[in-house]
């Protein structure tokens, strides 16, 4: 009897133990509402974020690498993105095409990748029974990719076609490329993520291999898994497959600080457009700045919804068809962009004058509490709306973990919104939204 009781007790003890794999650090961190993220770090530096959500029998799996076009050098722009294309080729374990075949056979959804100035991400969503499959495949291609010349040549042509689609034959793409080239004279944010045609033609297999060795390592990555998972079992699987991968030194280029802009920069171009277009970019600080929540409130006050100031003064007044503000959080100081499509026979200069006028009003603290309340409500709506899927939750976690160093920064920004008042807005606008801090590009119809 005693032996049986002892055996039973021992079983219960071991069953109750959720031991973390050896060499792994673990913590639980608040997310939104009652949910918690399980954060781990393997001995080789791989960061892992796990969020349980059993509402559907699926999960989102994302791998975020801290590498983007910011890590390129002049003359070899577009390499981060070109290399992202190459990551779908063969490895020493799986021949070309097998990676995607296996995932698709398992029922994957949305398997894709994206490259930005600050990061490169690889994503897929799968039914919950296929967790180990994706862990195996992703850990394999993190270190075992094989790059061959023929595949590179073809993928280079695919990327050139993508460049034609997004830039050469796309006026908006051309404007965005121009404004970054004007706003940044030293920092790598100046060149487009897709790179320049001549640089893409220049990239060799060796360049890709070097890039892979430099940046694709567990200590430069975060794996995010959100969905119907058991965090304990998941970290065990991740440790099993990623644990043996060696860390490697990440050799970044010497950081290049963009010098402060001291005068307005302007360019007017003629493109195949039916109406004038305006793009205005102001320099703003990086994601960890205390100004970031203020900029978010500013964005919602000025544009993006039909009660915003610029919508009323531009669209409703018959000057523009639409006005948008693009203000992505960045790991380095970035840009706050106003983008306006004018109405027929309306001038971009007029829209610019209206934007200036509204900024001046805010600089003079002419902002009502209701406007701020509305901006915060809209942000909250946007946030809640964005948390409606495993994929978007994973995206939030991976994005902030990579650009800010910890995903909690995204939550801090949300929490900080409530404290914003007209004085905080006024201070940021006075500080940042000066003419000498901006670059302006205007597109005119050809022949006008």
């Amino acid at each position: 009897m005693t032996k049986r009781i002892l055996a039973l007790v021992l079983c219960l003890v071991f069953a109750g133990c959720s031991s973390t794999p050896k060499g792994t650090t673990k913590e639980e961190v608040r997310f939104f509402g009652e949910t918690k993220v399980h954060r781990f770090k393997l001995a080789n530096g791989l960061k892992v974020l796990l969020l349980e959500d059993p509402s559907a029998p699926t999960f989102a799996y994302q791998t975020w690498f801290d590498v983007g076009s910011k890590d390129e050098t002049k003359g070899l722009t577009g390499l981060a993105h070109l290399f992202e294309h190459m990551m779908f080729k063969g490895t020493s374990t799986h021949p070309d095409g097998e990676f995607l075949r296996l995932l698709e056979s398992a029922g994957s959804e949305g398997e894709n990748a994206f490259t930005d100035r600050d990061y490169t991400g690889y994503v897929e969503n799968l039914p919950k029974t296929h967790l180990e499959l994706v862990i195996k495949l992703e850990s394999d291609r993190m270190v075992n990719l094989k790059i061959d010349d023929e595949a590179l040549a073809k993928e280079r042509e695919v990327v050139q076609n993508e460049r034609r689609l997004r830039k050469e034959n796309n006026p908006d793409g051309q404007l965005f490329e121009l404004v970054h080239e004007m706003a940044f004279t030293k920092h790598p944010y100046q060149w487009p993520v897709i790179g320049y045609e001549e640089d893409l033609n220049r990239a060799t297999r060796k360049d890709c291999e070097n890039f892979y060795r430099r940046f694709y390592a567990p200590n430069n990555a975060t794996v995010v898994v959100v969905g119907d998972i058991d965090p304990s079992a998941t970290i065990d699987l991740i440790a099993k497959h990623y644990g043996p991968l060696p860390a490697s030194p990440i050799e970044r280029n010497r950081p290049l600080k963009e010098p402060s802009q001291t005068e307005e920069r302007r360019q007017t171009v003629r493109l195949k457009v039916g109406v004038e277009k305006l793009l205005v970019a102001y320099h703003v600080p990086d994601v960890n700045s205390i100004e970031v929540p203020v900029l978010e409130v500013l964005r919602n006050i000025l544009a993006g919804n039909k009660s915003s100031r610029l919508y009323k003064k531009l669209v409703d007044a018959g000057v523009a068809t639409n006005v948008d503000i693009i203000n992505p959080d960045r790991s380095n100081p970035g840009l706050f962009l106003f983008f306006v499509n004018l109405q027929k026979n309306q001038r971009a200069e007029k829209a610019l004058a209206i934007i200036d006028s509204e900024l001046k009003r805010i600089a003079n603290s002419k902002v009502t509490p209701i406007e701020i309340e509305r901006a915060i409500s809209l942000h909250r709506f946007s946030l809640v709306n964005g948390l409606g899927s495993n994929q978007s939750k994973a995206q939030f976690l991976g994005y902030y973990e990579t650009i800010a160093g910890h995903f909690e920064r995204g939550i801090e920004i949300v929490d900080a919104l409530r404290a914003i008042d007209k004085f905080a807005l006024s201070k940021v606008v006075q500080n940042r939204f000066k003419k000498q801090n901006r670059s302006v590009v205007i597109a005119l119809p050809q022949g006008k």
Partner: protein
Amino acid sequence: MKRLNQMLLAALFLSFGNLAFATVEFEEDFSLPIVYFNIVVDVGASHDPKEKLGLAHVANQMMLRGTTTHTKNEFYEQLNRLGGQFEVETRNESTVFRGAVLSENAARYLTLIEEAFLRPLFRTEELVKLKKEVESEILTEKSNDRALAMYHFNRFFFGDHPYGNPAKGTRKSLARINNKDILNFYSRYFGSETLNFFGTGAIKAETMRTWFSRMTEKLGALHPEARLPQTIAPPPAIKGRRTLLVNKPNATQAQVLIGGAGMRPEMPEHYPVLLANHVFGSSSIQATLMQELRVKRGWTYGAYNMFQYGREPRYYTMYLIPNTMLAFQAINLTLDIFENFINNGISQEEFAFARTSLINNAPFNYDTPRKRLENVTVENILRFPKDYHKKLSQNIEAVKFEQVKPALKNFFNPESLVLVIVGDGEKLEEPLTKLPGFSSLSIKSYTED
């Protein structure tokens, strides 16, 4: 007797859920503090009079431009302050009003929405402003090559059939739309029996049903004569192969759409063709079109074959975006692959792979409440069988390999195709005259409506 009572009770419950012939469906979901809904009105761009194309779009947009109680600005100031959004989409055969709000503000939000439906102001000044905006949107879209290609494909494919009506109209047709048209549109189509409701979110279903029922009752009292428009006749059959070149000088890339008559779920070929198309033209890199055009040759960024559905069959389109200098070869290769696909079908291995992938992927068709909301909305709009999306995997599973080849031959007619290409006419016109079987070549400037 007990069984009869149960049947009567069930009938009462069902009729309560389908108020006065309107469909009302709501899925409670308290996982996030947000409420979504779609209100569908069965009138769209296909119902526009020929001389007033864009009417449905303009009239629908006018519903959001002020009420008898709030100006447009006041309306949106209140709406946005509640953490809400309200948009309208004019589709081909229907209109969808999409609402969303933080659930703690749902009651006040719904009051505003009801006001938009029951007391729109339709100010002439707003109509003038709106028409200018839409005209400028039409102009702006001419610099978007993909939008250009789709616009011209629709018009060229359907010709005079209403399915070819552009949702925003043309610059000429917009000018003819007046306030009386808007008022007539409103009273003709917004009544107690012409709206359907679909929603999901953190609120009691009963609350939403009651609100919708009350609103539609009032609409019915306002517009007792409101009725659904006439059904659209099936489009005429495509005969032969014809081409439209939309000339965009100096474009370094072409947008190519090659298509033929579409299908419906009721057709016996539907599921076998869907399965086979997963092999031929899905967005997967494994699909034949992607493999041959992108992976092996690098000739295009993407290559797919997609189906566009309507209440009558619309079309399928093979879409590719090649470098201008390779457009002719890419089109020829696509046609060759297409004919091979129809004549030879797919292999057993490809069949098994596609079947497994589609079945395993099925949970993603309805894994979030929002997806389920869009599914039921689309099923209603397109008159698909109920639970079409939920049952897709079991219908795919029921397909047998022997059914595929005959289904492809029955459904696809490679001799009747429409090709629309947006690109540099100087480089493309002459090669296009040499395309096999394409007897007629029309040319337009990209600036034309």
